[in-house]
């Protein structure tokens, strides 16, 4: 942001220091927003789960149990940290810290609204993909450092699972990139600004370009579904929570963790889920744009446009999180070989075909359609 001509700073800092302070403030704001949201998302997750099973869920701490997450937070923090005797101490402590930090740094490039983003990278989507592919380290390190059988098996399982599903997530992202022609997240969102029929997940409603919308629409709707399922597998959510399958591995890689390290693992895990919700929103559900048009079409001042855009984005995050919570509540757990089969034998070939189909559309159909429109 460029200050106005009559702007007189209170303290004259060098420009770099000023920039650094501004970024620090933005980082703090986003982190605090995420942590507070997380407290209520956790409660929401449990409430949805309870509602599906005709229970009430947490309802004791605060009105409707609203403060339950905060009570849990203090319970975890005040417990004793137990480090197993044979554990590799450094790596044991490092693993939850790594998970926690990695879950946060991805949010640096997530655009909450027009110009509401900490770092508007040219390769934003690759950055997100890179950070989410690092998430496996926290789990595999935690599993190994515990020096115990169940955590180790859980860690190995999850490493294999996350690496497998990363491949199909990568190809699904490529289909979106082909349609947009940019790696920048703001550009990707703005390419979907016209309304729900331009959202990548729902291009099938774009009847203006019939019959091409059938090819794009069906492919991208399938990609949206596959991205959602891959996101479940990538974040070790039920029905793909095999790394911690409590009926087989007790709790997988986090068996030996207690107190704050466990809390860090849990926060990191949930934050990764919210991150996947954000990625789905940005890639397929139009980011901060409204279903009937762009956020700018409301005709508000820049400040209010940004504010409403953030609210829309935030609402979409909650809707996606509701989907995650419902899947946890109603789908039974997969067997490990079924999971691997789904990833390698179904998702990988399908997403490859989708990449070819989108490439064909972008090269041959879309230019032809534009030429007809331009020609008359």
């Amino acid at each position, binding site marked *: 942001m460029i200050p106005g001509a009559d702007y007189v700073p209170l303290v004259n800092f060098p420009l770099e220091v000023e920039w650094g302070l501004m970024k620090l403030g933005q980082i703090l704001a986003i982190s605090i927003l995420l942590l507070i949201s997380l407290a209520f998302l956790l409660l929401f997750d449990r409430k949805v789960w309870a509602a599906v099973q005709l229970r009430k869920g947490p309802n004791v701490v605060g009105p409707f149990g609203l403060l339950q997450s905060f009570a849990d937070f203090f319970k975890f923090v005040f417990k004793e940290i137990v480090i197993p005797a044979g554990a*590799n101490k450094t790596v044991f402590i490092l693993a939850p810290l790594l998970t926690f930090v990695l879950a946060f740094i991805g949010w640096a490039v997530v655009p909450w609204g027009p110009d509401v983003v900490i770092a508007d*990278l040219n390769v934003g989507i*690759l950055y997100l993909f*890179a950070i989410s*592919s690092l998430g496996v380290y926290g789990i595999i390190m935690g599993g190994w450092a515990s020096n115990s059988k169940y955590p180790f098996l859980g860690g190995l399982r999850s490493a294999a699972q996350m690496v497998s599903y990363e491949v199909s997530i990568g190809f699904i992202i490529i289909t979106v990139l082909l349609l947009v022609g940019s*790696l920048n997240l703001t550009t990707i969102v703005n390419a979907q600004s016209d309304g729900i029929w331009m959202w990548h997940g729902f291009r099938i409603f774009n009847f203006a370009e019939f019959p091409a919308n059938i090819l794009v629409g069906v492919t991208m709707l399938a990609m949206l579904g596959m991205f959602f399922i891959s996101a479940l597998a990538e974040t070790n959510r039920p029905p793909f929570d095999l790394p911690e399958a409590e009926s087989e591995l007790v709790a997988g890689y986090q068996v030996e963790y207690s107190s704050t390290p466990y809390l860090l693992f849990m926060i990191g895990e949930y934050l990764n889920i919210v991150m996947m919700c954000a990625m789905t929103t940005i890639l397929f559900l139009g980011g901060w744009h409204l279903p009937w048009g762009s956020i700018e079409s409301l005709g508000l001042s820049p400040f209010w446009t940004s504010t409403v855009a953030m609210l829309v984005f935030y609402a979409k995050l909650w809707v996606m999180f509701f989907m995650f919570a419902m899947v946890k509540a109603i789908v039974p757990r997969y067997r490990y070989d079924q999971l691997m089969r789904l990833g390698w034998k179904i998702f990988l070939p399908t997403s490859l075909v989708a990449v070819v189909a989108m490439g064909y559309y972008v090269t041959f159909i879309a230019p032809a359609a534009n030429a007809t429109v331009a020609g008359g």
Partner: protein
Amino acid sequence: MLATIAFYVLAVIAVISAFAVISARNPVHSVLFLILTFFTAAGLFVLLGAEFLAMLLVIVYVGAVAVLFLFVVMMLDVDFVELKQGFLSYMPIGALIAAALLAELGLVASAAVSANGAPIAIAPAENTGITNAEAIGQVLYTDYLLVFQMAGLVLFVAMIGAIVLTLRHRPGVRKQDIAAQVGRKRSEGVELKDIRPGQGLG
């Protein structure tokens, strides 16, 4: 100023962690330090303005290759005493390779010193206004498409070779038939029996 500080911090971490890769006693720690080295190298790429290469380095090497390293090293039961015994017999060839690498580094460094810090033999990047993802795409998929495809073919053949070498068909191994599992009906698996009390199935 910030960029200079960032460069020195990243460079020092990269050198220290690269040294720790070979000096760490525990192979798992070695791999973790290797990951740190990759990561700082990606940071240096970002400082050079090559953010696309940096992200690829993190995705491919840190996100996939190093995970496999870690996977294998954790599964191996390494006997350190045995490893140390074989050390001397590998010493000459190891020293030879190290000397060659050191000489190469020395040559590069001396060239850099004699040029007084000016870049040698690097064409100044033309500011054409395209992002470096587009620039790399231009080079790989337009200018040198044939070479790129041939390199891909070589890798593909190598991959098939590795699969063929490790593929074993053993007789008498029970395999899953997914279609049969999915196509199973309730009537084939569950049978309702009316059991009278005190008589059992008889």
